[in-house]
């Protein structure tokens, strides 16, 4: 058991090192010169050389990499070329916004996925319509879902807001609006934040919900073949009792690891959707950074989201190993 956890943690460290090394390589070998990006095209050669030396760009590669790693461990993500501030200060405001969106998206994806899987057990027409909606939505690009969502729920129906995280300005201690509002006992603010959250979260949830739904559905079907299900039916339980009490729980283990894997797709979706809903998170920051070739910002965003993905998946693996000893091998 301990050996399994230790091994998984070791591979976690290796994967994180690979991610940082990849980002370091990209920064080093990018065709765009960071010194020029900071000083501008017209800077003279002496100034360029001075800054180059100051940034340590003349050191051997491995020295640069260890500097970069050391900086990361101290929370130094570099200085943004655009805002000229440490990237970490810029990110403090944006990370909670994207996390809130991502978590809400995951909750919706799991709910939709479970409903999708359960509807495959029934033959009713309206349920097939729901499945068709999810299937089509998963084939649509995230930005189309966002645009259509704004047109339908904001412009036509007027039910949901189309931009931002909240109608109020300012932020609380955690910068997670839902948590801050609960801490402050601000009920209207809480529901207002949920109101703003629904549409963008739904947009990033539909793709992953199909993946979750598919896997859960096939897991349900194979679980239904077990003898204990027949026993349950034989002792007179109705179909929904059998599924609700005996099948769902046993079928849901594959879904857990899938949820971890889908977080990657979720984050990528958030980068896109934030641009449509002016959601003040990493996606909006990333778009600006891409436009300005702001490499420290781009690599910091990739590192934070990537590390989040890797950590969650390691946690999921360990959790599953704890629950199910058969998974501890490999």
């Amino acid at each position, binding site marked *: 058991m301990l050996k399994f956890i230790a091994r998984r943690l070791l*591979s976690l460290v290796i*994967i994180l090192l*690979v*991610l940082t090394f*990849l*980002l370091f390589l*990209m920064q080093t*070998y*990018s*065709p*765009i010169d960071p010194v020029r990006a900071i000083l501008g095209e017209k800077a003279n050669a002496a100034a360029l050389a001075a800054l180059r030396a100051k940034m340590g760009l003349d050191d051997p590669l491995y020295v640069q990499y260890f500097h970069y790693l050391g900086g990361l461990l101290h929370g130094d993500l570099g200085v943004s070329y655009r805002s000229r501030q440490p990237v970490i200060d810029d990110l403090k405001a944006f990370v909670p916004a994207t996390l809130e969106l991502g978590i809400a998206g995951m909750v919706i994806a799991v709910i939709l996925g479970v409903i999708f899987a359960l509807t495959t057990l029934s033959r009713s027409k309206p349920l097939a319509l729901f499945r068709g909606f999810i*299937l*089509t939505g*998963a*084939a*649509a*690009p995230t*930005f*189309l879902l*966002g*645009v*259509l969502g*704004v*047109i339908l729920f904001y*412009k036509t129906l007027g039910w949901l807001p189309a931009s931002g995280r909240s109608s109020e300005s300012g932020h609380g201690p955690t910068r997670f609006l839902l948590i801050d509002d609960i801490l402050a006992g601000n009920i209207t603010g809480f529901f207002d934040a949920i109101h703003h959250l629904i549409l963008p979260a739904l947009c990033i949830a539909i*793709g992953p919900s*199909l*993946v979750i739904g*598919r*896997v859960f559905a096939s897991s349900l079907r194979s679980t239904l073949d077990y003898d204990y299900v027949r026993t349950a039916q034989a002792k007179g339980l109705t179909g929904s009792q059998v599924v609700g009490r005996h099948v769902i729980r046993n079928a849901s283990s*594959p879904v857990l*690891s899938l949820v971890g*894997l*889908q*977080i*990657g*797709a979720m*984050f*990528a979706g958030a*980068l*896109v959707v934030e*641009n*449509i809903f002016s959601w003040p998170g990493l996606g909006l920051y*990333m*778009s600006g*950074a*891409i*436009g300005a*070739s702001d*490499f420290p910002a781009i*690599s910091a965003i*990739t590192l934070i*989201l*990537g590390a989040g*993905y*890797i950590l969650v*998946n390691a946690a*999921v*693996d360990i959790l599953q190993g704890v629950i199910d000893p058969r*998974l501890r091998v490999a």
Partner: protein
Amino acid sequence: MTAATLVPERMRLARGLGGRLSSEMLSWFCIGLFALVCLIVVFAPLIAPYDPIQPIGAPYTPPFTSKYILGTDSIGRDVLSRLIYGVQSTWPLGILVVVIGIAIGGAVGAIAGVVGGWLDNLLMRVTDLFLALPAALVAIAIVAFLGPGTTNMLIGISIVWWPYFARIVRGEVHSLAARPHVEAARMTGVGRRRIATRHILPGVVPTLVVLASIDIGSAILTISSLSFLGLGTPPPAAELGADAAHNAGFLLQAWWVPVIPGLGVLVLTIVANLAGSGVRNLMLRR
């Protein structure tokens, strides 16, 4: 990492619409749709009614109200023509990403499976490392660092696209190696190299074809997302994702300008997915 390798998520997603087409006719019809899109790509300059780059009418002409069937955009360019040229840039890229992914992943998987031993171990460790990284994010970062553009997009996406294929091909090689016909060949004294090239690798091809055809849809979705983030060909080139992004701000005044390229991507993905399940059904029949 076990969890990452158990479920080829992209492939499941890519099946999208039409997961269970049954009749052979329907399968061929879907493959026909795929061919039709290819024809549109080839003959785009002949089909597109106007120049996609030059303004030709009043800005924001709504669809179906003038000779510009799908209307005009913010500077009066024909939306239909830009859609057609956008398809021309997106569709081949989607196919190419999958082909490159298959080529790299197939080679890695085949070498690992056939040679075995320490090389198998090494290659699969590398594959697992790539599988453990968040693919879309890494692709976005790579293109952002290389600079926007079609070639860099192809490089960035291909780098994260191959590991799935490597895993699957290796597994397929292993299962084929245990089949009676390979055993029989070995008994009669056929050399290792000949067994690999004549008796095992050809057997992998059908699986690869099915995987590839199912995967094109998700490649197109990824490409259009990167293009939306400004990582594709710089403007004024017509690109489906970028066109939607540039006009998303005017969505309330002129809904059709961002919606139509988005619908274009949706249709391409559905066609690719339908053709994918068509190919799969025809192959399974054999």
